[in-house]
């Protein structure tokens, strides 16, 4: 494998609907293996479209995508991708254990042996007691954690998360971020994390990609040189705030270039 887990070159994408909005225009991005990369930007900047293109759920109209040295479709077929959508997307009739075990039952030929012990993984994620419950019996935060465990259970090379914590309250979100970091540090994977929270992006990432809308494009790439683990102390440090301010400014610039819709 080359040094890049995800490689995007000149990606363009126009929405198929009657709006013909240019969702992405000339997007270049290279993500090295094992990096945690967040994509941040206002709504309509094409960040979710970008994620869907990497996941092979959408075809770009221009440019090339390489994931794990191959096409997204091939990477999906080889089960190298783990996807965590905005909603947990669990099956209500299956237990937590049934839900996280299901991906191993489809496309079995490409299961990455040995399969992890899902019970152990659930216990590790604090879901040991909930294992035999159904999604409806869980809180929103727990459901999202189940979706994350399901993705990690595939032992993916690339993990794609689309605003997974956006529906959660502040406290739950912080706990979920920690859980995600713990799993990631233990299991490893290249992560592409879409978010609209600056704090979340700085806390989680090695690199933050700033995007702007109309047309959707990358306006800046900021490396977050902060040590891990990212403790509460670190989050309160001036360095952390410095990064938050930098990102806030870059996002504001993106808005001002766009028109005059400066966030009030």
């Amino acid at each position: 494998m080359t040094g890049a887990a995800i490689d995007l070159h000149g990606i363009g994408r126009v929405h198929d609907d009657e709006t013909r909005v240019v969702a992405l225009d000339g997007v270049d991005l290279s993500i090295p293996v094992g990096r945690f990369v967040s994509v941040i930007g206002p709504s309509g900047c094409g960040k979710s479209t970008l994620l869907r293109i990497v996941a092979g759920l959408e075809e770009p109209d221009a440019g090339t995508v390489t994931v794990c040295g191959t096409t997204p479709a091939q990477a999906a077929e080889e089960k190298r991708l783990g996807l965590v959508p905005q909603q947990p997307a669990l099956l209500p009739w299956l237990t937590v254990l049934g839900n996280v075990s299901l991906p191993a039952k489809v496309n079995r030929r490409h299961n990455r042996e040995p399969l992890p012990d899902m019970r152990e993984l659930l216990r590790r994620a604090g879901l040991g007691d909930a294992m035999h419950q159904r999604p409806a019996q869980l809180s929103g935060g727990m459901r999202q954690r189940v979706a994350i465990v399901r993705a990690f259970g595939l032992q993916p090379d690339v993990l794609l998360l689309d605003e997974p914590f956006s529906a959660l309250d502040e406290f739950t979100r912080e706990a979920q971020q920690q859980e995600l970091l713990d799993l990631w540090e233990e299991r490893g994977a290249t992560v592409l994390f879409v978010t609209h929270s600056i704090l979340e992006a700085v806390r989680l990432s090695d690199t933050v990609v700033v995007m702007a809308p109309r047309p959707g494009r990358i306006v800046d790439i900021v490396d977050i040189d902060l040590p891990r683990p990212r403790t509460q102390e670190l989050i309160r440090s001036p360095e952390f705030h410095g990064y938050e301010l930098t990102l806030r400014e870059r996002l504001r610039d993106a808005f001002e270039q766009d028109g005059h819709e400066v966030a009030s």
Partner: protein
Amino acid sequence: MSRPVRTSVAHPAYWAPVLVLLVVLGVLWQLGAHRMPYLLPPLPDVWSALKGDPGYFLHNSWVTLREALLGLVIGFVAAFSLAILISEVNIARRAVMPVAVVLNVTPLVAIAPALVVAFGFGPAPKLILTALICFFPILINASVGLRSVPVPVLQVFRSVHASRWEVLRHLRIPGSLEYVFAALQIVFPLSIVGAVVAELSAAGSADGLGTVIQVASSMNRLATVWAAIFVLALMGSLLLLLVTVVERRALRWHGSR
């Protein structure tokens, strides 16, 4: 979890209202029966018609029940298979749906005599009519159910390259159960309607409760007619109870939502 407190079935507040209504209806019935003997038979007569020859009613009930259930199974298999086809293949959907809708607005009981002419007095026209009547509600509900899987779930499974069959087996079919049971609630009682109407239209049939009604009414034996009707009502209620119980067990996950 914030379900309202349910009244226990054993509590008078649960069964008393319906019992009172039944008593009132029974009294009204008896009054009517005494004034106009050709309108309604007295209830004791109905009871003695039943008690006089329980074997006769049991046999004919069994015949009708068998026709109803067998027709329902045939209709179910046909409708569910077609629902899978049209939920997977768009061309098939465009071809089938208009025809199915026309079939639905056609009063199917009206084709019963034609079926009898074509297939005779045997079980065939009864099974065909029952299957046809059950067909549409199952087709519609199943095809809606099969397409009810949320997009994010489908995306997760596409991202692991799940095959069409795997999506069908793990997501679409289990996801459609809720809708299929709703259809069964409608279709179980309808299956009896289908069987009885076909029997009524086939004046030469040997047995079945519809035939019992046909024969008895031609001889002005109102008590027997009503005995058969009560048996049909009981049969329908028991079938509905059966579906409800099975549904509760199969969709237990659903109740906890």
